[in-house]
């Protein structure tokens, strides 16, 4: 009783504090107000690596190909059809009669310009892996284009349906990335009509949107504001100045669901949480217990991942046993699994010469509560862990120098549904590779470049089995995202962590 009164009072006070001067968001206004926690790094999607940027990219631009997020079927978007001319050449027939938001007609020149621009490393596209598999593009005629690959790359179609969007050549040549960041122009279902970095973005329905597999936009206008604090977002949802928020932490989402005034939808994402260990002994830790496979196995046995998923992440999160997300092509789950067993962990530690455990630092950049839960589980088997909580970029830099012995991190694979987007990122002897296992790297190299699906599966299986046998990582769980929106909004989220305004409508 007292509890619910105090809750209501807090809510009322918070709601009052934000209600003043805010437009009421609802169906009648025709505008959907959404809240994002993080700011975009850059609206130009090639110079952005944030999730919010991916959402904008899918709304403003189109790719040549589109992957249906439910059936995972590839459909032509800006391209009508495509064929592999040989192992490293793709030919596209383009759709005719499409215009960019500024009126510029879409044709082969736009594709050639965009591909040649992003494939050139000196132009500094932020995530090189998204584009550096392309060598160049060539115009065959006005509506036929060829893209040449540097080497065999079976995930090409997946990448073309994701991060590679087509820019208008004349406009981009004139304004460049900075101009595109301020006044973005694409062919997508929504036009950006107002961009105020750090404050808000206004998207407006593209009335002339082509017959795209993305579907036709229904909501007139979308106003996205950056509100860093989750409590403020929720208060604005109560006061009515926001219609939709997402990435709401599990506990808050549960409370909001209990209130019954909002739709709370939960969807899985491709983001995988994991702990990496300094198996190769690169860090200055001396002696380094993680070079011993028994210690790494003990760490795996010591953590009750199921309890963390059930009580902290909740929703559609699942246990993950490999360094990739199970829906990704090649991400087999037929591997060694370490179930929670603290007794076995203690026995393995004793066998490895650490009967009283040892002390180490755990680096983490997000979800301090998950990290604390892990630390507590490790404490129970005698491993004393100090938490080093830092910015992602700082840890990544230390990691590249091999100075991080023990790291709780996550990887979202840019929503690319192929195991190469995760396991190959970390186990191919690159600077982030803690295991430095040459056998694994060789298997991955074969799997990444083979065009035969059976061969790819075979080699990914080999690599993943070796990784789990050696317990190089503790793969933990997949993340989920909570979407909370007003009951007059109709929306079904997809499991790829992309907010699609095109599939939203008013009830």
């Amino acid at each position, binding site marked *: 009783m007292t509890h619910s009164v105090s809750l209501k009072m807090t809510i009322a006070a918070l709601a009052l504090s934000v209600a003043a001067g805010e437009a009421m968001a609802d169906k009648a206004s025709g505008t959907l107000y959404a809240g994002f926690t993080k700011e975009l790094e850059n609206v130009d999607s090639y110079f952005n690596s944030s999730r919010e940027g991916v959402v904008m990219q899918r709304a403003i631009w189109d790719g040549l190909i589109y992957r249906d997020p439910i059936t995972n079927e590839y459909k032509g978007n800006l391209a009508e059809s495509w064929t592999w001319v040989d192992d490293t050449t793709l030919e596209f027939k383009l759709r005719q009669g499409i215009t960019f938001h500024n009126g510029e007609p879409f044709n082969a020149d736009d594709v050639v310009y965009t591909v040649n621009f992003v494939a050139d490393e000196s132009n500094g596209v932020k995530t090189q892996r998204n584009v550096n598999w392309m060598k160049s593009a060539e115009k065959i005629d006005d509506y036929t284009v060829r893209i040449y690959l540097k080497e065999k790359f079976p995930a090409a179609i997946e990448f073309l349906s994701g991060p590679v969007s087509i820019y208008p050549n004349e406009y981009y040549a004139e304004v460049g990335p900075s101009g595109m960041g301020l006044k973005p122009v694409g062919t997508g279902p929504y036009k950006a009509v107002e961009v105020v970095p750090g404050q808000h973005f206004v998207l407006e329905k593209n009335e002339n949107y082509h017959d795209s597999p993305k579907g036709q936009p229904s909501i007139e206008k979308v106003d996205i504001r950056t509100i860093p604090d989750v409590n403020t977002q929720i208060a604005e949802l109560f006061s009515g100045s926001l219609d939709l928020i997402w990435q709401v932490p599990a*506990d808050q989402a549960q409370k909001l669901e209990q209130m019954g005034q909002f739709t709370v939808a939960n969807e899985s994402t491709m983001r995988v949480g994991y702990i990496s260990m300094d198996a190769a002994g690169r860090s200055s830790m001396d002696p380094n217990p993680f070079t011993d496979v028994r210690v790494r196995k003990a760490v795996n046995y010591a953590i009750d991942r199921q309890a*963390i998923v059930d009580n902290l992440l909740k929703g559609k999160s699942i246990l993950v046993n490999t360094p990739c997300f199970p829906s990704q092509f090649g991400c087999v789950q037929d591997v060694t699994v370490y179930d929670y067993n603290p007794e076995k962990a203690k026995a393995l530690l004793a066998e490895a010469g650490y009967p009283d455990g040892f002390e180490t630092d755990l680096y983490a950049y997000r979800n301090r509560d998950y990290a604390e839960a892990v630390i507590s589980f490790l404490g129970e088997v005698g491993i004393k862990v100090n938490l080093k*909580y830092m910015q992602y970029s700082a840890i990544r830099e230390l990691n590249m120098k091999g100075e991080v012995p023990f790291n709780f991190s996550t990887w979202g694979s840019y929503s690319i549904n192929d195991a190469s987007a995760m396991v190959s990122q970390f186990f191919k002897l690159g600077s982030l590779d803690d295991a430095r296992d040459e056998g694994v790297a060789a298997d991955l190299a074969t799997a990444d470049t083979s065009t035969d699906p059976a061969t790819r599966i075979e080699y990914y299986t080999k690599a993943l089995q070796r990784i789990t046998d050696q317990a190089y990582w503790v793969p933990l769980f997949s993340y989920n995202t909570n979407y909370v929106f007003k009951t007059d909004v109709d929306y079904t989220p997809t499991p790829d962590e992309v907010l699609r305004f095109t599939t939203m409508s008013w009830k």
Partner: protein
Amino acid sequence: MSDAMTDPLLAEIVGPTPGQLLRRRIFGHQGLLIGGTVVALLVLVAIFAPLLAPHDPYAQSLMARMKPPVFLGGTWEHPLGTDHLGRDYLSRLIYGARVSLMIGLVAAVISGLIGSVMGICAGYFGGKVDAVVTFLINVRLAMPVVLVALAVVAILGGSLTVMVSVLGLLLWDRFAVVLRASTRQVREREYVAAAKSIGASTPRILLAEILPNIVNNLIVVVTLEMAHAILLEAALSFLGLGVQPPTPSWGLMVSEGKNMMLFEPWLVMIPGTVLFVLVLGINLMGDGLRDVAAPENRS
């Protein structure tokens, strides 16, 4: 003496003994009594934490997360509920008293030693010593404490030792300023001149003549800085740059409860209230001690 006790007339002429006077001043001062009791209680709690805490403050139970406290419908198993990892809130609060008091005390002692030596020397010797000390005080005052502490913690990493040393090395300015001024006043008094004229050495004058007469000011500054250090620790821990989890610190508890503030406000209110009570208690006590110890109030 016994005559004085029995004979009211004599008692009036002789007056109360110094001990009686002191007792009367202490027990007649409400603020001192309240503040002293609060601080004494919390010190006892901190000392006997292992006996008082009903649970291990580090033992997590993910199945029993965010259970409400007894007065909001919880059970006596966890009188103040549990936190986001199912750890007993009361136990964490009790152990948190250790962290807060330890940081307050050690930081005040370190900064007190530095500041007092600088202030007394500057006030007593004057001249070049005074110029140097004043310059150092100005330099120190120009540095914002929180920013410097944040920078140091960011470079060295947050831990109890780092926090205590940083705060101890930063919070000496008020000691130096106050003690410099009061030493200058006392230096001109007759008893100092008298001590000088009978040939007392400088250290003797400083310790036996100056220090006892400025100690009342020192006490006030000690308590102020203790409270200041405790609040700074809480603020830095709240920002994630202070004491590192899973160490129970009140500031950290507020920070961890912040995300659920809208739905479970008690997660923030409980540690916040205790922090408020401790700081208020220390300030009341300091104020009271000053009143009791001030030379002008002694008779």
